């Protein structure tokens, strides 16, 4: 049997799959393969995130490119006997399209076929623990080319020409940053890879580090060479143990192969790389706070200028780039800037990576060319809104990003267009919301995160977000007054303009965009005391329609406070002063009765039904 005929089984151990216990699948597979003595026919490899987390845990079979979804513990035996021994793939585990069609190859699944994978190309296809796997797909060719064929200035120019913009949020041209770093006076310089990724719900950087760590390290070495740094740091979240482990292994392997250390690849260039685990505050992702943290101080931002390229770590010129920016840099050096520039838009070349979550059918890691529309991402790749509900809004850019409404679905996704619409690229979170979402509630949710994560250094951010939160609570609870929305807008202005760092400057975005695009919802809360999405507890009531109640008693049994009352064969009702609006009765009432209703608390109907005790 030759090597090429070997069945390669790729078990995904990305975040989504791992939490679906894919590690057990791996063990079980290994055990079965061993038991059935298939060792030289089947090779099992752990991979980083394959992308389609919705279907976790997933297994890919190469070289055919078959794809098993939602693999259970008890499916393993069948896969081994039927597929590996008899050569008959288990068709019932193939991906099922919304139309009910089974699709065997992942490349035919729209989620994948509609993407354009540059940075995520290797993710889910190579063994991240094997440097040879990375080398086999052209890894470290970019670094080699830089060191052997190019001067540092030429490397800077290459990145400059590529038009690459920083993927950490602000979209600052990476080449320009490198140029500033290169030209900064001084012998001692640092390069830093920002792998803090503190946004809740974002896991792109972590996934890349787990699935393809060398691509990032390669980019970091290239960056250091270009700017003339002899020391570099990778600042990674402590809460990403898998990423830390993966980085450690990759650092060890790449050091042994002389991709960093003394005289890299026989050149005159030497580089020390340190791994630094961050304590996990969101604000530590901000570049100046991150550097303070490396220096052993509390992670608090400081005003810029001076920018890090002028005075960064320990006061020395420093270039700090995001994980994805660096991974892109390796590709650019390998494939050339012209190639890179041909992808994406004029202003934002290359691809955009999102972690697509929320009420969307296919959640997962998504990479599309810049300029793809929100519709492309949410509907073509993401498969549309779950349970065929209506799309209401999409939040991009993490907790400090903005919410865009359906009218903006055809907005091309790139740094400038998003910014213009009030949202941001941020670190690449994308959360889809449907009609059951209340926009006031959503704004409050995101703001409460930034409020808690404010480092406390400057007043507008520390106190302004708190005051905004108080007003939002007031509105949610039906205590809103005329002028509250204006007050909110004024506070937004104070916080945006008065805050020191990007956290405060962007924290009001969710509020600003929801007011801009969904002002009527705010006004409904304030003026009519209603929550149109029926989410805000204080503004809804649960009542039982006496016409429909079958007196089954389900609501009475589940109600935690005894508000749902009734007797056998007697129509039930809800005693409003006891109801805490947990909605358990609403969920539990059998569909055929469908007697519990959620209605606006201050409506005519509420007075009619709910009012009568």
């Amino acid at each position, binding site marked *: 049997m030759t090597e090429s005929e070997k069945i390669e089984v790729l078990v995904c151990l990305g975040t989504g799959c791992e939490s679906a216990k894919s590690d057990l699948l791996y063990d079980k597979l290994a055990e079965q393969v061993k038991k059935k003595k298939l060792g030289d026919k089947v090779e099992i490899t752990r991979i980083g995130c394959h992308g389609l987390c919705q279907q976790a845990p997933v297994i890919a079979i190469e070289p055919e490119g078959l794809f098993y979804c939602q693999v259970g513990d008890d499916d393993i035996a069948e896969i081994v006997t039927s597929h590996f021994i008899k050569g008959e793939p288990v068709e019932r585990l193939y991906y099922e399209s919304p139309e009910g069609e089974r699709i065997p190859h992942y490349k035919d699944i729209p989620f994948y076929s509609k993407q354009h994978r540059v940075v995520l190309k290797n993710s889910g296809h190579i063994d991240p623990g094997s440097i040879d796997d990375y080398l086999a797909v052209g890894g470290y060719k970019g670094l080699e080319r830089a060191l052997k064929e190019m001067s540092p200035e030429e490397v800077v120019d290459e990145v400059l020409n590529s038009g690459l913009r920083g993927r950490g949020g602000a979209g600052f041209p990476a080449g320009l940053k490198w140029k500033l770093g290169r030209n900064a006076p001084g012998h001692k310089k640092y390069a830093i890879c920002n792998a803090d990724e503190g946004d809740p719900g974002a896991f792109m950087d972590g996934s890349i580090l787990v699935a393809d760590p060398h691509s990032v390290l390669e980019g970091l070495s290239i960056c250091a060479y270009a700017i003339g740094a002899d020391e570099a740091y990778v600042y990674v979240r402590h809460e990403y143990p898998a990423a830390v482990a993966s980085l450690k292994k990759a650092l060890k392997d790449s050091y042994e192969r002389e991709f960093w250390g003394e005289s890299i690849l026989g050149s005159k260039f030497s580089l020390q790389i340190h791994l630094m685990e961050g304590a996990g505050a969101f604000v530590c992702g901000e570049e100046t706070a991150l550097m303070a943290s490396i220096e052993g101080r509390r992670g608090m931002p*400081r005003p810029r200028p001076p920018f890090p390229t002028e005075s960064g770590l320990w006061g020395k010129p420093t270039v700090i780039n995001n994980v994805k920016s660096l991974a892109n840099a390796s590709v650019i050096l390998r494939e050339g800037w012209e190639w890179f520039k041909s992808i994406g838009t004029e202003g934002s070349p290359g691809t955009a990576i999102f972690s697509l979550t929320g009420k969307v059918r296919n959640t997962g890691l998504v990479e599309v060319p810049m300029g793809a529309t929100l519709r492309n991402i949410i509907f073509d790749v993401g498969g549309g809104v779950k349970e065929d509900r209506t799309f209401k809004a999409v939040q991009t850019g993490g907790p400090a990003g903005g919410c865009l409404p359906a009218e903006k679905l055809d907005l091309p996704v790139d740094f400038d267009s998003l910014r213009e619409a009030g949202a941001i690229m941020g670190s690449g979170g994308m959360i889809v919301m449907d009609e059951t979402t209340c926009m006031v509630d959503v704004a409050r949710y995101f703001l409460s995160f930034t409020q808690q994560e404010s480092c*406390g250094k400057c007043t507008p951010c520390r106190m302004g977000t708190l005051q905004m939160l108080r007003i939002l609570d007031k509105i949610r609870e039906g205590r809103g007054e005329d002028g509250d929305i204006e007050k909110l807008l004024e506070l937004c202005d104070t916080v945006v303009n008065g805050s020191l760092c990007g956290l405060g400057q962007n924290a009001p975005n969710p509020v600003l965009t929801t007011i801009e695009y969904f002002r009527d919802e705010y006004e409904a809360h304030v003026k009519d005391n209603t929550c149109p999405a029926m989410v805000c507890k204080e503004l809804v009531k649960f009542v039982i329609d006496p016409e429909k109640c079958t007196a089954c008693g389900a609501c009475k049994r589940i109600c935690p406070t005894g508000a749902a009352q009734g007797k056998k064969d007697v129509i039930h009702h809800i005693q409003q002063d006891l109801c805490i609006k947990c909605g358990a009765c609403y969920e539990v009432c059998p569909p055929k009765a469908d007697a519990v209703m959620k209605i606006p608390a201050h409506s005519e109907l509420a007075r009619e039904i709910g009012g009568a005790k």
Partner: protein
Amino acid sequence: MATIFIDGRKIEFEEKGKTILDVARESGIYIPTLCDHDELESHGGCRMCIVEVEGMRGFPPACTTAAKDGMEVKTATDNLMTLKRNIMQLLLMEHPSACMVCAEQEGCNKYRPDPYKAGRVTGCTTCPNRYTCQLREVVEFLGIKDLDYLPGYKEIDVEREDPFFDRDYNLCILCARCIRVCDDVRGTSAITFVKRGHETRVDTSFGVSHIDSGCWFCGACIDVCPTGSLKPRMTKWTGAPDSVEESTCVLCSMGCQTQFTIKWERVMGSEPGALESAPNHGHMCVLGRFCIPSLVNAPDRIKSPHLRKEGDSVPVSWEEALGEVSRLLKEASPERVGFLGSPQMSSESAYVFHKLARAGVKSPNVDFQGSDFPALIHKELAVDQDFARIRELDYLKEVDWIISVGGDFVKDHQVVAKKVYKEVRQGKPLIVIGDAGANLHRWSTVHVSVQGKDIQKLLINLAEHSKKIPGTSYTQAQQLVEITGKGKGAVLVGPRILESIEPGLSLRALVRLAGVDGALFPLFPLGNEAGVIKAGLRPEMLPGPASITVKEAKALLEKAWGGGNLSDGLHLVEMRQKAQKGELDMLYIADGSISPEGFEKIPTIIYQSPYPSEWSDMASVILPSTTFVEESGTFINLELKPLKMKPIAKAPGTARQDWQIFAELGRLIGTDGFDHQTSEDIWEELSHFTRSIEVGGQKRRASWKPASKEKNDWYPRYRGAVIPERIEDLATFIKALPRRDTPLSDETLDELVKRVQKEHASRAKEVVS
């Protein structure tokens, strides 16, 4: 010269490292600030100083933005003022702000009523900072008259558990000045921000007490705080002082320029003088900052002269007491009388005391406690060029490295430590030989814990650039040689250098090591050692100081004093030995801090001090003298700079200045030359005598002993008053020092967190069981 336009005004300035705020201030343009402080690096947190700069995005803070040529800056556009007002409103949400918007403000400012304590919530008269609130200044500038938001106070308990000062973080505006001064200026890092979001507050790491966090109670944090959050307990509620006077603290040899707040003719509080004011430049230590009022206002101060009559010491008039003393002195046989002065008296007083002994009584037996160390310094540096190495502390800036020998200067010279840390922070190597507490462990580049006798060999070899250095590892030795081999050094030398077998050789080695352009800072532990040595209060010395063996000096003095006993006499240890043998008839002692052990057999003791001590019970005559805040005179600090002590408070009872008592006695005895009217007269007379010392020859007389009762080599006293025995907070602090100063383990943060968690868990278990 570069040009900048601020609010349309054209201003020329030097571009070097200046911020917009610097330039604005220099030209008298006011930009409100809260987190900025002259001594601290800019922070950019309060946002009060934001400005608009043509061509720059957003609103950069003036305090962090470098002023550049051609910049156009606006400081007070409508936009900016609204933004600032809105930010201030947010700040006032938490800050008790009744006093900012109070209708009675005008009258209140004018008449400054004494506090009547209202509830904490209203925050009006509960704030001890009312008269100098920097927050209110900015509020007034912004024209805020009413609050926009419902207040939501923090409701944090006031922290009162630690010594000396209370912390009421309800008033804190999180400007981080305290944190920055403690970290960046004092090098202690006792406090930090904890928590996040609106719960952010100032605290110690892990919430331990200040004592355990490594705080030195230097008070620097209090002095930079713009609000009333931090206040010394003692002076918190004394209200506005009648006056503020600047004078010198004498509790160590730094001689800090101190602002004393005076009310009812008493010292109510002490704060460091202005930032510009040398030598301490706005900083002090725990003694000067917190202990002076309790010390000088002590109720047990001696208030009138006492004579022992039929075994009891009874108050008498000055006339009677001095008459008796002059009679005793006249009748005594000079060789059998001892004179012990104090290193905490003024130089003038020491001089008149010396003159009284040698010229009046004709006794050469003069000394003071701790005189060995200043004498050693003078003798070993007798050559002018060597002596010139004692310089001003600011010279630390000029040297390439610093070495400390003979004591942990962080403990006994906190202000010197502050100056050293400034250099260390900029990367200047610090070598520590001997004692080192937590700060020195952190600051030192190399620390060799060699003690006592071995120091000598170490220093001599080091001066020879030999790598054979006792008590060091190979790499340490290499480092030592490398550091000291380059450029010029500064030597901080403490009295434990006397533990060397030949202290002179150790000191000379240090002088050679520092180089011709190097510096030497003798860290006298007690106070005015340098001044009292200038008065020559040693048996083998004369004023100047001069050696009795130097003929010209002797002749000059003979002429000035019209004779006197200018030969060698008994020093302190010899006086004690003679006393034990019954060969000393009389002792005139002006320092209650000397142990009376061995002196019990002396028939006649004259005790002169502001404070009672064990000597009071032995004395035939007690003469009350003043403390340093009640007398005029000169204090010579460790830089050998003369500093003035001023009578700024009223002495209790009829206490007199030391020199006045000595001069009166001189007149009563009938000796010429005691008609001094002012301390300035005396200073002038003393200034005629110049340094004229014979080189070397200091013998080891007694072993150098730590002054402590509790194995602590820092146990501050003042003329018989044991300060920690009088001030409980100081005792608590000193007691904690050995525990804190045990070297930090090399436990990593992770391990530490684990250990602390474990301890908490086991404590929780104990509570449960």
